């Protein structure tokens, strides 16, 4: 019996987004393998899993939330909080398994709490989980400001255990393709989730809830309980993802997994679960995660492409998937109306065409615009400054060396100690200015002494004092979350008063006059640097 492709598509339309994802994945991997020989190694394929088990675990939890028609923006916060709590408890001497049990319970409870907020107080999911994210991330810094290393033996074993792939590895020499224990954990989570979503009463209720909450309620399904449970599952998955992350990086810090929820949501959407809820497959999420990871790997392998291309490509791809999905949805609408009047049909056709045209045009415009901007910037600058940028990406704010340092006000002691560190070039400079005009510059590698005039120093001091340095208006605005901005610790001593104010640029929370003071000192020390 001859069948048209269109007919085949409309009969199996449930699987079309999934098929598109698979095609996408194969295309992306094929592209990568064609261009970069290293990507053809089987180990690289398994590394795809190995480097990102936490993404898969979190995405599985998110899939349930999205199928139920909600959204959970708190995942990154919960992941970061989990790493910090794990590291802190291990440092306090807890047993590794007790720690894991504790944080899993914590994450689950946290998810349940947010779920109850959403269900019983009728708070919009994205607002409740946003607040949840903030609280979780803020809590990290209540526990510890810096990264806490993990030295636990059990965690080390979990991190280092290699599970060899039969057929691709040599069991005698223990070389060849392998996956880590964490990947196995992620796969187990995935399998359990597939079972729960498709073969249990709870799973079907989740789908019904996402399809239409009111009908689900009228059908007598336990809507409220299911809704709370969905967020509970997501909380559990995020906590588990946090545990795997802390095992793979062997430390905990509140800055980990920033913007992680966007990766997770994009993966789920690319896996074929539209944000409107009601449809989607947990298995699709695995594919979505893989697409996400393959693209990130290609950009890493390329080396030439800057990391921001990942964001743009992921954005464009997500848009494309949504286009496919909404195309399918309107197709469904058309199929239902096929028996209706012809006029109706033509209206629907026109509307569908319009929609497809809009989305296709949007995607095209995005790509063209990005290309245009790129070319323009290249022309304007005569080539990139990739080296600086790449270095900046890897740069973490080191702790300030002058933290806790106070300047004695006796004669001959420094009057200004100015430290600037971090930034895209990872500087760590300390300038010590003395009343007699000496400026000692220390960039962490060498120490130089320069001379300014006492009058100039006195003038800067007066200016800073005039800016209200010693008043209540100037206070610390030290954020630790910023990865690329400069941190400043400025200590000023004048007329028997000493005050240190720390700040980070890139935020606008600093008091009005702080940057003017920094600028004044900058003028003094920059001159010394250039001389």
């Amino acid at each position, binding site marked *: 019996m001859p069948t048209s492709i269109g007919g085949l598509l409309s009969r199996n339309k449930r699987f079309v987004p999934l098929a598109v994802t698979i095609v996408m994945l194969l295309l992306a991997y094929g592209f990568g393998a064609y261009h970069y020989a290293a990507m053809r190694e089987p180990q690289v394929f398994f590394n795809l899993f190995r480097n990102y088990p936490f993404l898969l675990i979190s995405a599985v939890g998110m899939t349930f939330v999205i199928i139920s028609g909600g959204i959970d923006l708190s995942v990154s916060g919960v992941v970061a909080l989990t790493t910090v709590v794990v590291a802190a408890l291990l440092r306090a001497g807890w047993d590794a398994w007790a720690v894991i049990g504790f944080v899993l319970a914590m994450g689950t409870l946290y998810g349940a709490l947010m779920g109850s907020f959403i269900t019983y107080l009728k708070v919009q999911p994205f607002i409740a989980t946003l607040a949840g994210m903030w609280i979780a991330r803020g809590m990290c810094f209540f526990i510890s400001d810096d990264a806490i290393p993990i030295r636990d033996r059990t965690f080390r074993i979990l991190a280092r255990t290699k599970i060899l792939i039969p057929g691709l590895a040599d069991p005698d020499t223990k070389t060849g393709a392998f996956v880590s224990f964490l990947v196995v954990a992620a796969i187990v989570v995935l399998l359990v989730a597939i079972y729960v979503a498709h073969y249990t009463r709870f799973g079907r209720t989740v789908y019904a809830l996402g399809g239409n909450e009111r009908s689900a309620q009228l059908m007598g399904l336990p809507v409220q309980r299911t809704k709370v449970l969905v967020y509970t599952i997501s909380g559990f998955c995020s906590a588990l993802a946090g545990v795997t992350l802390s095992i793979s990086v062997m430390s905990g810090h509140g800055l980990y997994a920033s913007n992680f929820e966007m990766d997770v949501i994009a993966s789920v959407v690319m896996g074929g679960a539209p944000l409107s809820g009601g449809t989607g497959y947990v298995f699709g999420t695995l594919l979505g995660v893989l697409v996400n990871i393959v693209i990130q790997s290609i950009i890493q392998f390329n080396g030439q492409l800057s990391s921001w291309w990942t964001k743009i490509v992921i954005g464009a791809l*997500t848009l494309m998937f949504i286009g496919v999905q909404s195309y399918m949805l309107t197709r469904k609408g058309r199929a239902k109306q096929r028996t209706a009047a012809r006029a109706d049909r033509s209206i629907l056709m026109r509307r569908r065409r319009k929609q497809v045209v*809009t989305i296709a045009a949007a995607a095209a415009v995005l790509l063209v615009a990005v290309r245009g901007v790129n070319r323009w*910037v290249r022309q304007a600058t005569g080539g990139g*400054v990739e080296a600086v940028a790449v270095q900046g990406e890897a740069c973490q704010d080191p702790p300030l060396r002058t933290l806790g340092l106070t300047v004695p006000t006796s004669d001959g002691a420094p009057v200004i100690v100015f430290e600037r560190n971090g930034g895209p070039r990872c500087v760590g400079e300390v300038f010590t200015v003395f009343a007699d005009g000496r400026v000692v510059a220390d960039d962490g590698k060498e120490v130089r002494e320069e001379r300014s005039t006492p009058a100039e120093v006195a003038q800067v001091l007066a200016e800073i004092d005039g800016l209200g340095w010693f008043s209540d208006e100037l206070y*610390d605005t030290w954020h630790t979350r910023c990865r690329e901005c400069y941190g400043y610790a400025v200590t000023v001593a004048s007329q028997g008063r000493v005050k240190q104010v720390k700040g980070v640029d890139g935020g606008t929370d600093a008091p009005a006059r702080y940057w003017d003071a920094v600028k004044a000192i900058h003028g003094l020390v920059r001159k010394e640097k250039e001389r």
Partner: protein
Amino acid sequence: MSPAGNPRHRKLTESRLLFPVLALALILVFDFFYVPGFFTITNRDGNLYGNLIDILRNGSAVMLLAIGMTFVIATGGVDLSVGAVMAIAASVAAVMMNPVILGTSIGTDIEKFVTDPSFTYSPLWEVILVTLAVSTLCGLWNGLLIAYGRIQAIMATLILMIAGRGIAQLITNGVRIQIFYEPFAYIGNGWLVLPFSLYIVAAVFALAWVLTRRTAIGLFIESVGINATSSYFSGINEKRIKVLAYAFSGFCAGVAGLVASSNIRTSDANNLGWGYELDAILAVAIGGTLTTGGRFSLAASLVGALVMQATTTSILAIGVPAFAVQAIKGFVVVLVLLLYSEQLRALLRKLTSQWGA
């Protein structure tokens, strides 16, 4: 006379401004007792300084975002991309003023950028015009995707939120560009008795107010937010209204981007406006606009933005480390959500009517 029957009392309890102003007052009362000198306002060369002024000044970016976000949320949508649009705006502005800083081959006039504060590649009006055009275009893009592409608002703007930071980094080639051009720095750092950015907020607010309260657009927006389909059947072009709302939100984000980048004298594609979308959404939520759309109040949203900023400034001023701000903000939001929840309000109403009787 029972309080429910008193028209004045009713007007007060039903006013959208009541809760946000109450919240702001609570925070300020807290400051009065726990932060010495919080209310001191000093006069230096005719300009006013102090913690209260700082709240206004540092909150101006979020206030601007909140104005645009009010439009969007009132139509029943949400704009997650405002932070990214801020970054794009700042990058465009910075590149227009000193593209040389980008290149490895430094031009002969590099010195001029650093030493001559009045040197720029493009004049200020051009910078502002192009920046605002680009950011409005970003908003327009969101609006078209949502109204005509029929993509969910949260998803369409999420895409721009992810891709936007990438685009902003692309524009500046991933480099933080410092801005030495003084007239531009005046936008965020200048003072005319009060911080100059406040006048910008006032101007944008006036524009928004005239748009919504002196034309029918305000009504149309509320009607679309309450029921888009029935608005369509009563002759409102609901798609055009949505596009307008998102475009305006993009415009506001552009202004906020200019203010913020001028404030810190840099364009920072990675961090500028990071997390501001949340602040703006919560400001609108505190302002009492339902996140599902419908009736809105611009003034209440502004007060909501001030609540967020006052919380931040107070926390910093009492000496709590800045990293804790996020957590405390989160708790404030939870508190506000509790205050606004129908269940709790019903309980409160019951209590007050008993008390009045």
